[in-house]
């Protein structure tokens, strides 16, 4: 690789002895060196047959089993109302599985996709905050299919005390998310951690987490697990710290480092999303990988999977396609629009006295009726909020999406709980424009049927 004068770090000295290019496409050269004899044949085999550890593993498929809902820390890039937005993209809440259901899902998927050789537990909370469910699932899977690679992805807080249990359950691949080794940085990422029967906050919370992560990393490496470390790159918070972090990870014996861009879409409702923390640019991610690449082999093909992902990396299988029973796809949906002007989406949900109801199908958008509701907010007095919310829900019966200019957190949650998706994404858009955009979005997501229902689903 050609040495260039492009600075690979915001400041400081240039790393020496390693190629340093500004090209994002060169990231792959920072991956694990499989042929220089530094890794044993067994490790090479474990790496090349795992889609996350090596791009060579792409012909193998993985399944994440969502059996672990509880979490023992809060990250500012996560909103627990959804799944973790970085380890598992939010938007659709996973259906949780019991360990027995998890093992059953694995067997079904294995029948359908025989290349499924990796079973991971990644949440939607932290697997090791749910040790009983996690271990029971791993054991059930190993019993059904002894040759499968078992993986766990954790924040590391409870790792130290679980390493031996994980080892005896047969876990070979472990991922720890470590965003920093400096508590002054950590306190900007983690508002609290639950440790030793207490909720810790601030610097103490971050220091406790970091100490436990590093102790857990050391123990897992000593137990012979292949440890990958995930780091969420957060501009202005840990981007200047990546090289120091990677040095420490190397000292502790981690195998692979996966630097992932922060996801901070405000619609996910995370602290970072709502406080305007920006996501890194591609160049910044590349720069961070180059900086860390002086110490650690880099993974640059991460797809930031959901905690219930199934199939080949980047080609997730929709589990709904595998279910014979209920189809999630509609031939048309009802959309409620809150509008004062009748032209733009310019009404606050809480002040809307009526909604215009539209029926949106793959080929048509038609206005069906105007429904009147009781107001949710009257001035500042919201004592009767609950009953007004009930009135709104009643008026919105059968509606799947509500478009408005603004909406409070509480009604947002109430609507979601009742299966209605509120959106302020189209605030101040023309109604017709917004509905057309929503229509194409629904078609794209497969939530709206583009063809007659008889041709869509294949029973499993």
């Amino acid at each position, binding site marked *: 690789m050609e040495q260039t004068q492009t600075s690979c770090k915001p400041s400081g000295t240039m790393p020496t002895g390693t190629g340093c290019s500004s090209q994002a496409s060169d990231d792959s050269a920072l991956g694990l060196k499989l042929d220089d004899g530094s890794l044993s044949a067994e490790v090479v085999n474990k790496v090349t047959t795992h889609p996350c550890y090596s791009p060579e593993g792409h012909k193998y498929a993985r399944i994440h089993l969502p059996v672990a809902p509880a979490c*023992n820390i*809060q990250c500012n890039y996560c909103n627990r109302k959804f799944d973790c937005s970085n380890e598992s993209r939010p938007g659709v809440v996973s259906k949780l599985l019991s360990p027995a259901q998890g093992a059953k899902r694995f067997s079904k998927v294995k029948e359908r996709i025989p290349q499924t050789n990796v079973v991971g537990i990644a949440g939607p909370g932290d697997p090791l905050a*749910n040790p*009983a469910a996690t271990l029971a699932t791993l054991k059930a899977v190993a019993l059904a299919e002894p040759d499968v690679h078992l993986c766990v992805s954790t924040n590391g807080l409870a790792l130290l005390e679980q390493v031996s249990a994980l080892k005896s359950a047969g876990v070979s691949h472990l991922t720890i998310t470590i965003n920093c080794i400096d508590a002054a940085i950590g306190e900007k990422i983690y508002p609290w951690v*639950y440790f030793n029967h*207490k909720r810790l906050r601030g610097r103490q919370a971050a220091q406790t987490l970091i100490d436990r992560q590093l102790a857990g990393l050391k123990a897992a490496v000593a137990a012979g697990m292949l440890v990958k470390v995930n780091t969420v790159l957060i501009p202005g918070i840990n981007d200047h710290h990546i090289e120091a972090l990677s040095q420490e990870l190397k000292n502790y014996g981690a195998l692979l480092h996966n630097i992932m861009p922060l996801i901070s879409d405000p619609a996910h409702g995370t602290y970072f999303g709502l406080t305007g923390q920006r996501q890194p640019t591609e160049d910044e991610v590349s720069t961070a990988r180059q900086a860390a690449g002086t110490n650690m082999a880099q993974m640059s093909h991460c797809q930031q999977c959901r905690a219930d992902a199934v199939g080949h990396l980047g080609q997730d299988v929709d589990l709904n396609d595998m279910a014979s029973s209920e189809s999630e796809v509609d031939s048309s949906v009802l959309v409620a629009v809150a509008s004062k002007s009748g032209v733009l989406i*310019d009404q606050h949900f809480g002040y809307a006295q009526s909604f215009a109801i539209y029926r949106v199908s793959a080929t048509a958008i038609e206005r069906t009726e105007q429904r009147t509701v009781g107001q949710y907010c009257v001035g500042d007095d919201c004592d009767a909020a609950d009953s007004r919310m009930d009135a709104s829900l009643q008026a919105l019966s059968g509606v799947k999406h509500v478009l408005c200019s*603004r909406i409070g957190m*509480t009604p947002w949650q109430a609507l979601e709980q009742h299966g209605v998706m509120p959106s302020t994404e189209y605030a101040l858009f023309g109604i017709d424009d917004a509905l057309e955009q929503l229509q194409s979005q629904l078609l794209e997501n497969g939530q709206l049927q583009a063809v007659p229902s008889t041709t869509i689903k294949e029973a499993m």
Partner: protein
Amino acid sequence: MAFSITNACIGCNACKLVCPQKAIVSGANGYAIASHRCNECVGHHADPQCASICPIETAIVNAEHRALNPPGSLTGLPTERNVIAISLLEQRLSNHTNHPPSHGEGHAR
């Protein structure tokens, strides 16, 4: 003397795993605390365990219906209503600076 769980609960099961009294029950109707079992962790721990791990503000309340984790205490976010919407709107406006809102968004808080 017992806590209870409100409908803010997201059903993450964390409280159930740490309750020393096994007072937390779950089923088709969500999560609840069996009041005859809950002793607010007195004699077990300095802090009530459910409220120490719960990630959702206002999901656990005491006998006076006071939230053990009041709004803003866990996420650091002002949970004033509209926080999502304001943020989204600001983003949209900064993307469309040539397109100022002329319509009465008069209820900013």
